[in-house]
């Protein structure tokens, strides 16, 4: 039997290890939001939010400290930070579309082995919301999908072909999940890391996508 699945906070912690010093990072709503709590202390990264702010501080969770004129793209109140800059939405999207965002971490409904991403329609709904996520998926230098490997019902989210409407085709570079880290490569989906107690076979058993297993698969290190 495989090991436990990582919880959302630990998944975010693993994703945050991708952030290198000086990078511009944009976090999607949901689990990706937590990544901002886990930036390695020796690294200085700038968070960008598509509603027009870059270099802001932590999310504020006490309504008495919140100011509704400083929110992130998920409409959560955020704090000011030295070096922060405000801009209008068009300029903010130039930062995204122009390829100036180093990493975006996005949630996913499905990711295909080709790197197709479906995440703009909530399953069961008929109408979706693209927001700024489509621009990020198409144009960030590196797109990380951060998602559980399967749905709560056990259906695979990492799939051979997406059945849901696409946010962007062939855009995902790396998939970080609660059981494994995989890269989308020209050869296909390559397993890079497994969660403690998980094997490549355990991971493959949960998806119809073909997973390439190189000899150097590592155990996910979380500290």
């Amino acid at each position, binding site marked *: 039997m495989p090991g436990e699945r990582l919880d959302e906070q630990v998944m975010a912690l693993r994703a945050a290890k991708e952030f290198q010093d000086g990078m511009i990072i944009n976090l999607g709503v949901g689990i990706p939001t937590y990544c901002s709590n886990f930036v390695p202390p020796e690294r200085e990264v700038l968070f960008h939010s598509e*509603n027009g702010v870059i270099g802001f501080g932590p999310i504020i969770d006490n*309504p008495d400290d919140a100011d509704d004129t400083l929110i992130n793209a998920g409409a959560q109140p955020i704090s000011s930070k030295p070096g922060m800059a405000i801009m209008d*939405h068009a300029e903010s999207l130039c930062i995204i579309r122009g390829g100036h965002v180093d990493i975006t971490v996005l949630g996913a409904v499905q990711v295909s082995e080709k790197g197709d991403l479906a995440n703009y329609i909530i399953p069961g709904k008929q*109408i*979706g919301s*693209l927001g*700024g996520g489509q621009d990020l998926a*198409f144009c960030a230098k590196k797109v990380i999908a951060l998602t559980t490997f399967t749905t709560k019902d056990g259906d695979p989210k990492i799939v051979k072909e997406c059945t849901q409407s*696409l*946010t962007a085709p062939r855009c995902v570079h790396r998939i970080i999940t609660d059981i494994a880290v995989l890269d989308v490569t020209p050869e296909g989906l390559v397993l890079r890391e497994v969660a403690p107690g998980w094997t490549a076979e355990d991971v493959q058993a949960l998806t119809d996508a073909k997973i390439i297993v190189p000899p150097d698969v590592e155990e996910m290190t979380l500290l």
Partner: protein
Amino acid sequence: MINKIVGSFDEAVADMVDGATVMIGSFGGPAECPSYLIAAVARKGVKDLTIVGNTGGWGPDLLAILRERMAVILTIPEDWYDPGLLVGRGQVKKGVLCFPAAPARVLTPFEQGVLQGQVELELMGQGTLCERMRAARGGIAAFYTPVGVGTVVEEGKEVREFNGRKYLLEHALKGDYSLIRAHKADRYGNLVYRGTARTFNPVMAGASTVTIAEVDEVVELGELDPECVVTPGVYVQRVVVRPKELRPWDEAM
């Protein structure tokens, strides 16, 4: 003498007619939303509007629920009237939006309208929407963006390759009215905003025939630092000051 200050919200939208295309500078929170202008459009009762903006709004009922649920992390003011007010009252026939669907299983008035076949949706990402409005402000007819190729957004659009990458042709989007929210204005219509309440508001300024700014305060000419003016008054036709005290949406003002 140039004086763009208008005495009331009702006066500011008095010439709006049925079928107008109305850009509404709300992103998703109360601070950036031109609530009292939206309320005035609701009171005026114009119909068949095309609304353009990030969201189709929550509407009063969902906002009431949201206000209660969010109280532990955010205080939502009572006088937040969003585009959902217009949608819920049947004044909207079409939305050009980025975020029409609630990020939860609840249905917004706009989603309900689409599902009931009463409202049409033109969906696009924020980058494309912003750029289409800026193109209208800046006299650009159309532009090629990489975003949306191979997705639902591509439907009916020209695809063209530049340097080996595919792009979609997107057209300028001009409105009849831009209803925007700003912090301070002077009588020329110069505007400054506050924090992330800037968002779509300056992008819509100048993208419509008539831009109306709902502001916290009007200051004397010269009080705004020329280096920090975000929207030059040339893009603004009317300015209305928000009431100091909270006012219900259906009260003439």
